[in-house]
């Protein structure tokens, strides 16, 4: 290219005057200007960059929980820093340096799977079906639910501080921001208008004080008559002592209650004399006593006796220990205790301070010993801070459970908007933690349930999924009076069968009931052979998440036993023994006896949502929540069947089955706003830079 700036000619004088300000010449000053084109190119370049950044931002915040991974191995997954859920440890935890090396970069190459569809033929030749099932992305990503509450990723456990405030249902939860196993616990937060569609908010309470540095554990909300919100929660201190702390919203006028403030003089309660430092947690919602004080209870234990301690306060800052509300020997530590009133006459919920005739009080405790939630109905005596069960033989911890499957740390709150009491329950995983780490998340919450006294039996509570879940129902299919002979299995064609709401009624033929032989048989769902074990009067019910060949199936069913006195005992079970061909998942059979009254048909409701199945018998008198991890009965391969495995009875079934739409889960600030704000700021920056540029030149 020709040099457009030829060298200045060397004058004969050998000296060239430098341009000098003092040399005022009359020659016009010609300033070199960048062509307009170059400006435009720079601005467009910045705009393109902005779009790109916004696009990346959108992708990162979208719900892509299991990251698509060509080779399917989670070695690759764990290498990406933002998705690495594994907690790194150091020598201080007593672990040798050696173990801290990230292992097996080589093995990820060798463990490379074929295309996303699954494992290549070659590796299948080696094993038989005793082989531990290699979880692939398709199976794992399917497990994520569509209308149950769960955060975008990582570990969750207990529900915390649920309440209805300024038009929003608030939900907090135990959360590990760093991984898919328990640890580093803080409070997650989400809000909803209808308990079904949610907006995830920033973390509400984090572990940044000495009194909660080892965990921001479970707590409850109290809304005072003047509208103030009080949050009490357990903190695990720097010395691993369990204490109770007070927190409140930073801005009570913010309906989303995004920011929270901890009381400057926390903790407000420490373990009292005689109570172990590690047996003092999960404060309840407070209620007003007749004396006008606020009262809470905190579960604990003395020896092997589970107890509930009673505290009174005027200001939630200083407390007086009143004594023990109730104790049950042999039950061990009571976690997440809850006390609430139920009406024996009406079908609405009651606010926590309700008392008087027509009101009974339920105490519930989560037993650390067996990780089940138990409740008992009784009478609360305000004056001497005690509670007495209606029936001591089914007292707390030795009687009825909220749910006979996997359901723990449950907590109720009073929804003052719709005058109902609502129950939340933590549903953990029952697969291997390796799978949880691989899929990047663990745990769900149950669909919130209304909870009422069962006035027909007087002994049970009734739980039922909140009616708002029905707004997700689409594509109804009815099956009217389908008759099944003994041993029959009938496919039900409903289309895609991974998100369903099933309501079914069963009638067993009367002759079979009369002819059945009385027996002393002590039946239990757990101890039985599941749905494959045939009896005269059962099992019969529905198979969900079953594949066409029934190699994988999860039966939800009734089993009737005729007792020696001629009375029938009905059991309601969920059988996971064949729910998956994988060998590293739990395959128990869950269930219990369910009271069936004269004249009642047998009825069940089943909510299927990918890896969770929530079942309700007799309108919610008995509930079973199960987690299942099929490898074949997933996506379009999942089916529903009706079955009757009784030997001697025919059964007539009528069903209504709906497919369920997915719920909406947004993130605050929501995706669109975030995209827009990133893009706008880049645009402004670009404009600013090009203006600056103009002035420089």
């Amino acid at each position, binding site marked *: 290219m020709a040099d457009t700036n030829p060298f200045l000619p060397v004058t004969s004088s050998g000296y060239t005057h430098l341009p000098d300000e003092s040399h005022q010449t009359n020659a016009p000053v010609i300033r070199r200007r960048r062509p307009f084109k170059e400006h435009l190119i720079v601005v467009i370049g910045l705009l393109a960059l902005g779009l790109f950044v916004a696009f990346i931002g959108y992708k990162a915040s979208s719900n892509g929980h299991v990251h698509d991974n060509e080779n399917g191995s989670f070695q690759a997954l764990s290498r990406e820093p933002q998705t690495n859920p*594994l907690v790194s440890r150091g020598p201080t935890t007593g672990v040798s340096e050696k*173990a801290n090396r990230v292992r*097996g970069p080589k093995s990820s190459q*060798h*463990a490379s799977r074929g295309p996303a569809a699954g494992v290549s033929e070659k590796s299948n030749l080696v094993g038989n079906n*005793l082989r*531990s099932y*290699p979880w692939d992305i398709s199976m794992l990503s399917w497990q994520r639910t569509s209308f149950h509450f769960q955060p975008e990723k990582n570990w969750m456990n207990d529900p915390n501080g649920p309440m209805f405030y300024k038009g929003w249902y608030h939900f907090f939860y135990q959360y590990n921001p760093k991984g898919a196993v328990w640890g580093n616990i803080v409070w997650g937060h989400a809000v909803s208008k209808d308990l079904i569609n949610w907006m995830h908010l920033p973390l509400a309470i984090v572990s940044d004080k000495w009194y909660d540095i080892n965990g921001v554990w479970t707590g409850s909300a109290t809304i005072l008559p003047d509208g103030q919100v009080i949050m009490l929660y357990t903190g695990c201190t720097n010395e691993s002592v369990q204490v109770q702390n007070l927190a409140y919203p930073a801005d009570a006028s913010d309906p989303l209650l995004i920011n929270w403030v901890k009381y400057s003089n926390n903790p407000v309660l420490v373990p009292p004399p005689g109570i172990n430092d590690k047996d003092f947690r999960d404060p309840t919602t407070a209620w007003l006593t007749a004396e006008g004080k606020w009262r809470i209870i905190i579960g604990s234990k003395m020896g092997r006796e589970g107890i509930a301690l009673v505290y009174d306060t005027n200001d939630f800052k200083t407390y007086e220990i009143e004594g023990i509300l109730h104790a049950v020997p042999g039950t061990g530590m009571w976690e997440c205790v809850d006390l609430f009133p139920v009406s024996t006459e009406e079908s609405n919920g009651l606010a926590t301070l309700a008392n008087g005739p027509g009101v009974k009080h339920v105490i519930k405790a989560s037993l650390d010993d067996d990780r089940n939630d138990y409740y008992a109905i009784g009478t609360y005596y305000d004056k001497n801070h005690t509670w007495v069960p209606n029936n001591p033989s089914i007292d707390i911890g030795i009687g009825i459970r909220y749910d006979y499957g996997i359901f723990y740390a449950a907590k109720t709150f009073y929804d003052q908007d719709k005058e109902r009491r609502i129950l939340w329950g933590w549903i953990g995983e029952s697969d*291997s933690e390796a799978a949880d780490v691989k899929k990047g998340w663990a745990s769900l919450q149950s669909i919130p349930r209304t909870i009422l006294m069962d006035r027909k039996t007087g002994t049970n509570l009734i739980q039922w999924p909140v009616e708002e879940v029905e707004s997700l129902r689409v594509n109804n299919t009815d099956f009217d009076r389908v008759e099944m002979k003994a041993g029959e299995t009938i496919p039900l064609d409903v289309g895609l069968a991974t998100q369903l709401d099933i309501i079914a009624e069963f009638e067993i033929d009367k002759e079979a009931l009369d002819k059945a032989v009385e027996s002393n048989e002590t039946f239990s769902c757990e101890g039985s052979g599941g749905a494959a074990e045939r009896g005269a009067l059962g099992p019969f019910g529905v198979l969900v998440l079953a594949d066409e060949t029934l190699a994988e199936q999860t039966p939800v069913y009734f089993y009737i036993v005729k007792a020696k006195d001629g009375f029938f005992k009905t059991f309601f079970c969920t059988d996971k023994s064949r729910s998956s061909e994988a060998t590293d998942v739990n395959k128990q059979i869950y269930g219990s006896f369910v009271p069936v009254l004269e004249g009642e048909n047998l009825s069940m409701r089943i909510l299927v949502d990918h890896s969770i199945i929530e079942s309700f018998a007799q309108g919610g008198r008995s509930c079973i929540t199960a987690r299942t991890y099929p490898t074949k009965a997933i996506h379009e391969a999942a089916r529903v069947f009706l079955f009757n495995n009784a030997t001697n009875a025919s059964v007539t079934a009528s069903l209504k089955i709906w497919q369920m739409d997915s719920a909406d889960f947004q993130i605050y600030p929501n995706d669109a706003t975030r995209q827009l704000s990133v893009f706008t700021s880049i645009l402004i920056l670009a404009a600013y830079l090009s203006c600056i540029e103009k002035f420089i030149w």
Partner: protein
Amino acid sequence: MKIFLLFLLFIFPVNAIRLTSIIRLSNLIDHTCKQTPYYELCVSTLKSNPKSADADICGLAKIIVTSLDSKASDALDQINDLLQDELTLDPATEQALGVCAERYNVILNGDIPQTMAALDTGNYKFAQKGTNDAAVEVSACEKEFTGKSKSPLYELNKEVRRISIVAAAIVKVIINS
């Protein structure tokens, strides 16, 4: 003879208390290990760690978990060594070893930290979950090798599995105490 000893105990109550507490401490290991399915392994693991001399049952659990950690580490080292040896490995074994590496990673980076944190803070059910899961992960690893005469990790897997079962059993004792 017995009466004489009893008499002595009455006269020297202070010594008696000290004596019984010494007996109680050394009995703690015995008493605890008897509640696990692998008594010998439990006792030898505890006794080989000097901290067990004055540990309470929670401390004993942590000692077992520390041993689990070191055995799992060894297993992972062994897996990596085997994987280096590419030339003699058949693809099936290679793949199985890869899965085992994943499982052991979860034991070391997921189960064990979770268990230690749970034991420290008194939220024992998560220690139960972690130790039980370690056994599940080891079993899953071993099952990768079905069809072979013996997996190359058989002995190590067995040790790791047993020690995690001992740990889980001790945690159960803590919860039930």
